[in-house]
Structures are given as C-alpha cells and as structure tokens.
C-alpha cells in the first residue's frame, strides 16, 4: 500500500535502511551506540519500525474509474453450456500422451463449431469467460470473427484495457471508439475513423460497411480514392468483392486507368465477374475470336487460335502481358481472355451446345487443358453452377480420380459454386469410387455436419482402409475432419468398429489397435458434439 504511516517515522526508517545497506561498522544506526551491539540494535529498531509501518498502512486514493461496460442484451448461456465453454477454452493440445492423441477428443478443434452454434442461438458469454475467449481468438485468427461476435460488447470494453487484445478493436468496426448509439453519430464516427484511422481499422470499417451498405462503402472509398497509397487502394478495392453489383461498374471502370498495375488487375477481375459489364463484353469479343468450332473434323472439334499480341486495350482491361517463368506468351494471354469472358459467350459461339456438350468436345492441338482450366476459373469467378457441374463431370468417372484436365484444387473450387446437397453427393460418389487418399481437399468444401450419404461414404472408406491393413495415421487428416464434421447421430453406427480386429497376415503390426483407438476417439468426439449441441438447445 503506497500511503505510509505518519511522517515522523519516515526519517527514522530512512536512517535504518542507510545504515543497514552500508553496514553498522561503517554507519552507526540512529539511536544506537557505536560498537559490536549496533547490528542487534539496528535489527531491534527495524523490527519495531517494520511492524509499525505495516500496521499503519492505509488505503490509497481511488484512481479514475473506467466507464462501465455496455449492457449485453443477449440471454446468458445455460449453465452446462457455460461449463462446456470453459473446458473447451482451457484444453491445451499436446498436454497428454506426447505426439499421439490417443482416444481423447481434441477439444480446441471443437471450439469453432461450439461458437457457431452459440452465435446462431444468440447467447451471451459469462463475463468471466471473456479473457480466455479473447486469448483463444488472439492465438487463432480463424476463430476471431466467431469468437468476437460471441464475446460481444463487454469484450471490446475489456480489450481497451489490455494491449494484448488490441486485435479485437481492429477487427471490430467502431471498436476503437466507444460503441454507443447509432444513426448520425455512428456515421460521423465512421467518417472520422475513415479519415484518421490506421490502415487495418480502415479496412475493417470498409468491409463491415460494405456488408451492410454496399453503395455507401463504395462512395466512402471513392471520396478519398485519389489520395490513397497504391497498396492501400489494392486492399480497399478487394473489399468490394463482397456485394459486387452492376452499380459498382463505373467506379471499377475508372480504376482500370489506375497507376498501379495490381489495382488495374483487381478492377478488371471484379468487372469480369459482372457478366453484363462493358469489360466482360470486350473480353468476350476477344476470347470468341480465339475459339472456333471446326465442323470439317469428325467429330467436330474446337480449334484455338491464341492471340498474337497483347495490345494496349487488353492490358488496360487487366491482361498481364508478361507470362510467369516457363509459360508461353500466347497461351498465357489466351487463358486470361477466356477466364475473364462471360461463360454465356460459349453456347452462342459453339452452335448452341450446352456446357456439358461443350466440355465433351475434343480440342485440337493440345489446347484442351489450357481451355478447360480457363473455363474452371471463369466458372468459379462467375459462380456459374451449370458450368461447374459440366466441368466437374461425374464423380465416378475413372478420370475423376486421376490426373485429368481438371486438378483437385480446381475441383474443390468448382464444388464451392454448387449447393450444399449437390456438393456432398458429388464428394460421396467420388469417395465411393476413388477412396480417401485424394478426398481431403474436397471434404473441406462440404457443409457441416456432413450429409448422411457423404458421412457413410467416408466411414465405409475408412473401414476399407483399415481392412487393407495400413496404419490409421495415413488417414489422420480425414479422421480429424470426420471428428469435426460427421453428423453426431452417426455415432451409433460406428460401434462395430471400436473393437480391435484380428490382424490379417499382411497387415502392419499393431495397426488394428491404433484403428480401434482412432475410431474410439471419433465416437467419443461425436458424442461430445451431440452433448454440446444439446446443452446449447436448453433454455437459459
């Protein structure tokens, strides 16, 4: 306690401390006789003084109190769910069993799901859980949006008091200023933050405004566009990806004349995602001249005549003139033209064929992979499910599992343009035909919990992998996904897999036991997820 006892003792105490530091042989303590007894006298006096000082301690003046945290209007978590949150937040991976996880669930991995459910049900966290929640969000950027949404207004209040949690203020619009009120005041604060804020704050502000008010965000950006630095312009432009509409075209067209090449390229990419934009029409005209149908062949085939030059107009529309190392200029330009051209160009150009028929057409002179890859990128950019379906083909087709025209990464992106049900069905078909070794990336695209046919396809495939005698850690990625994504109601169907099977002759030694452990962890995790969901269903 800072406020000491009466001043009369202070001088005595100072004298004792000085004498003690220098030694009583050199400095005789106050009130004592010089000589061998001085040390004991000093200790006597210091003991009395220490107790006196301690007994005389009084409270300090109160410092300026912080403003109170804003009210959180959401209902509090049910008790069981609050306890669950604490256990999820305090679980530290790798605390037991060294590298191997054994059969215990990985709780930290379940936190994203728990947060999503809690947010969907609109619960408020217990205040005392906020520090652990903020720490978790600090360590894992992927958790931040859901964790901060759940943490709510009191977490922002808290984050202002602890520099470790500054990220929460940056990630939340208006976080730096007191978030109270709305309407005109809020607009004014937004304006001031935009004019005076740090770069990260401005990006966050623009992103959140864009989500609520696309036109307002664009106008805010346009108001300072000319004075922004090139790398900032690039990041700001990128935030227009959200809620992109035809109304953005004039602004983007103007950005095509930007001083920075990267800004021009991004503006062009955004415009090409608007199929009715002038840029899309220009790209369609260019791309169409490169691709034609040669009816003299049997069957008819697509022939490609790649551009011979990258003219100023193409460059202005975002075509990169210089190819990356190892790529030919002409195919590089061609790919960019097709990628940016509206997909509706092609049925017109190719005698009214459907996407499926177009994809099935032979392509002359080895241009197929270039052309199909460009269509894949276009289908993803324009979010065109019809084309995506055609390019994906049937999941059971033999070439789907091997190195075909369309790579796994491209397939995963194409799947992203389809509805959840269709996506799950396609991946289920893929796994049933080709097994799990290539499935990880595709599974990552599927909605949680996995649709029943998909979940069963994964479990069947794991079962087959076990019977084949390999070790489970070859499938640890898929196992981990299954723990987080399999529908908990499937747990009962897994009971048969928990026992240690008889080892076949050619199996890896001990694999059966490890598989049983892996399946136990899967089932334990599923039961835990079911319990978590149940706790959050309860009325608070």
């Amino acid at each position, binding site marked *: 306690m800072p406020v000491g006892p009466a001043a009369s003792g202070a001088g005595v105490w100072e004298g004792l401390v000085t004498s003690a530091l220098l030694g009583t042989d050199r400095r005789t303590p106050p009130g004592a006789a010089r000589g061998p007894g001085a040390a004991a006298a000093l200790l006597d006096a210091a003991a009395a003084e220490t107790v006196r000082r301690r007994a005389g301690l009084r409270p300090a003046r109160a410092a300026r109190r912080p403003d109170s945290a804003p009210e959180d209007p959401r209902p509090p978590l049910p008790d069981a769910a609050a306890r669950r949150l604490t256990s999820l937040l305090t679980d530290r991976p790798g605390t037991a069993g060294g590298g191997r996880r054994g059969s215990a669930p990985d709780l930290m991995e379940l936190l994203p799901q728990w947060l999503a459910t809690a947010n969907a049900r609109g619960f408020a966290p217990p205040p005392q859980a906020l520090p652990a929640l903020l720490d978790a969000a600090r360590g894992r950027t992927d958790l931040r949006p859901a964790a901060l949404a759940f943490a709510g207004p009191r977490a922002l209040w*808290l984050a202002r008091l602890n520099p470790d949690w500054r990220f929460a203020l940056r990630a939340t619009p208006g976080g730096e200023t007191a978030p109270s009120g709305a309407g005109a005041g809020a607009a004014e604060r937004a304006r001031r933050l935009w004019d005076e804020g740090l770069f990260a704050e401005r990006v966050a502000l623009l992103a959140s405004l864009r989500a609520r008010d696309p036109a307002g965000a664009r106008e805010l950006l346009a108001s300072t566009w000319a004075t922004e630095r090139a790398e900032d312009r690039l990041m700001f432009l990128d935030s227009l990806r959200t809620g992109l509409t035809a109304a953005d075209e004039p602004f983007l067209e103007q950005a095509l004349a930007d001083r920075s090449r990267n800004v021009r390229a991004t503006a062009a990419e955004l415009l090409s995602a608007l199929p009715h934009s002038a840029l899309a029409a220009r790209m369609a005209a260019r791309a169409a001249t490169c691709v034609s149908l040669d009816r003299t062949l049997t069957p008819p085939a697509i022939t490609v005549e790649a551009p011979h030059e990258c003219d100023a107009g193409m460059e202005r529309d975002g075509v990169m003139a210089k190819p990356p190392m190892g790529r030919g200029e002409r195919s590089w330009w061609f790919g960019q033209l097709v990628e940016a051209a509206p997909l509706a160009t092609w049925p017109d150009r190719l005698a009214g064929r459907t996407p499926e028929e177009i994809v099935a057409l032979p392509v002359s002179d080895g241009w197929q992979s270039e052309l199909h890859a460009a269509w894949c990128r276009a289908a993803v950019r324009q979010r065109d499910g019809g084309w995506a379906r055609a390019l994906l083909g049937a999941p059971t087709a033999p070439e789907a599992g091997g190195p075909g025209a369309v790579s796994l990464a491209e397939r995963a992106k194409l799947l992203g343009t389809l509805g959840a049900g269709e996506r799950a069905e396609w991946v289920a078909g893929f796994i049933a035909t080709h097994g799990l070794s290539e499935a990880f990336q595709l599974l990552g695209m599927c909605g949680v919990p996995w649709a029943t046919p998909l979940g069963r396809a994964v479990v069947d495939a794991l079962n087959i992998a076990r019977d084949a005698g390999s070790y489970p850690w070859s499938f640890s990625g898929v196992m981990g996904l299954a723990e987080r994504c399999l529908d908990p109601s499937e747990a009962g169907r897994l009971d048969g897999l928990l026992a240690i099977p008889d080892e076949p002759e050619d199996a890896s030694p001990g694999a059966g036991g490890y598989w049983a452990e892996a399946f136990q962890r899967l089932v334990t995790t599923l039961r835990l997820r079911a319990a978590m969901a149940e706790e959050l269903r309860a009325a608070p």
Partner: protein
Amino acid sequence: MTQGEASDRARCAVAGRGEPSAEGAADPSAPAATDPSASAATSGDPEAARRRAERRAERITAGATELEQRLADLLRAGLAGAEQSGHGLWEETAARMVDAQAPGLASRVRELGAIPSSGPGWPVRLLEECALLHLLARGWLHRERLPADLAATVRSRVGLPASADGPMVRDRWLVLAQHDTADARLTTRRVWLYGAETARTVLLLSYGAAGRPPELALPVGLALEAEVSAYPDAGRRRVALGRRFAPPGPTRTRPRGVTTSRAAVRYGEALRDDPWLDSVPVTLERVVPVPDGVGWQLADADEDSALPLARTTGSQPGLWRLVALSGGAPVTVFGECGHRGFTPLTAWPAGPGPAVPLC
C-alpha cells in the same frame, strides 16, 4: 544491548494485544510446523515425549542463537554485499536451521535469499524480513517471558508441531477460495472457508509431495456442513477439518464484506497478535477494479479510497477475469490483504451469480 532489552522491544512491537481475535493466520511457509503427523511426538510415554521435546527445544535454541549471530554479521557488513553473495549463503544458513529442527526459521531464511533479485526496493524488503526474522529468533529465545498466545504463535512460526485442540465448531462452511503454491519439495494448498452462521473466515492447509496435488479438494462456491477445530496460534485462524455431515452443495451464502479502509485496519489489528503476518483474509464489498497507472487497484464504489492489488497479480488471468466480471460495476471480492497489497482470490458479481475463482 542485552537480550532482555531486545525482548522488551519485541514485546513493544506487539503491544496492544488483547483477547485473541479471529485475525491472523498460520504461516503457510512453515508446513512442517503444523503437520498433524508430527503431533505423534506427544503420544506414547509422556516422560520420553517431554525429554524429546526438551532436546528439540535445545537444538532450536542453538539454531536461533546461531541465526542471530549470522544476522548481526550481515548487518555489520551491510546489506549491499548481500546482492553479490547470492543464494548460496542463505541456502547454507537454511540448511543449518533444518539441522536445528526449526523448519519455520529455515523457510524464512530461504525466502531472504530471493529478495536481492526481486527488483527495485529490495534493500528495504530485505531489511524488513531480516528484522522480522530477528524478532522471531528473539521471541523464541525469550518465549517463557511472552504471553501464552504470542508464545504459541512463536512456537508455530519457528516450526514446532501443534495440534488443532480448539473446540469443534459446526457450521455450514462456504468454500471461499482454494489455491496452491509449490516449491521444490512440497505443494501447499490453502483453502479458505467462511461460516454462514459464525461469519468466521478460517484456513485449511493441506500438503502434497512435490508436483502432486494435495488430497483435500473443495470446490469454490459450494458449502459443506462440517466441524472444524482451531490450532492454538494467536490468530485462531487456521483450523483442521473434523466431521463432515454432508458433501459440498450449492449455496446462496456470500461472505459479509467491508470497505477498503476497514480491510486495511483489520490487517493492522491482526499484526498486534502476530507481527509476522503477511496478510489477512478479507472480503471487500462493492469495489471496482481500476487501473491506477502502474497496476490495478480495488476502489470502493461509494468512497474515494482503494487498495492496490499485489504486484504478483499483474498479468495473471485471474485479474482479467475479475475485470471482466466487474465490467466497471461494483463486485464483491474475497482475497488476502497485507503489506504487499490485496491479492484477489474469488469474486461475485453485483447481481445474482456464482462465485468466480480468480486463482
């Protein structure tokens, strides 16, 4: 100065002693002092036990005399040299105190060794602790001239075993806090209880071998119907758990709290019974955690005074749980209040809500 004069000083330092109040607590750094198993010395042949106790007292007296000499030597040469001499000197002295069967003196000596590296202001802290250690050694050497309660405190602080021989007190005990401290040899668990009927705050100590948690575990915020009995120290704060009548269960009981001014006075009063006391258990009511520039303080919601939090609280997750729970509004906080500041252990929200452990 003669020893008699020093003893008078010691008595002077603890003047104003009245009836033993509930303030004061056994020193947790001296576990062996009150290890129930050590009370075996009192069993068996009473004559043999008396002789054993006498022999031990003689050894402690020899140890305390040696300690006095070493402290005097240190003060004659000056504390400034203590920074260089490092831990070795203190470890050696502590080992001598262990040999003298005075574990309480040994652990205090060991703590002295850490002070020179404890940051700015260490000479003041080292002088304070040396002086209190000197006071304890003097207290032991002249224990027959001390009042009975203070003599009991000195015996316990030096490290002699005692047994909880106070009358059994039955109450519904709210578990206020439970926290562990560990050194290389021992894990010490401190469990604070609050009696719903008696309004007494008492301390249970339990020990585990290094790295292993002590056996006794009571969940904070629950209450258990049980009997306790006090140890004979001046404060009567430390108790042993007797019969338990029901397992711990939920309760709405909260400890009655005081203001920060009253809490500071309580510590001062408790020092009259036990000058070696570092802190007293206190519940603060209607306080708000407030940053004060260097650290945090607990400020009275309705008055202009505040207790600074002990520096060790600085970066602990418990501090932030407390701040989050408060959200700038008054809360109830139980903790230990002493010369190092206030160490918060458990908090309750202003409205209804369970106890939130902070340690």
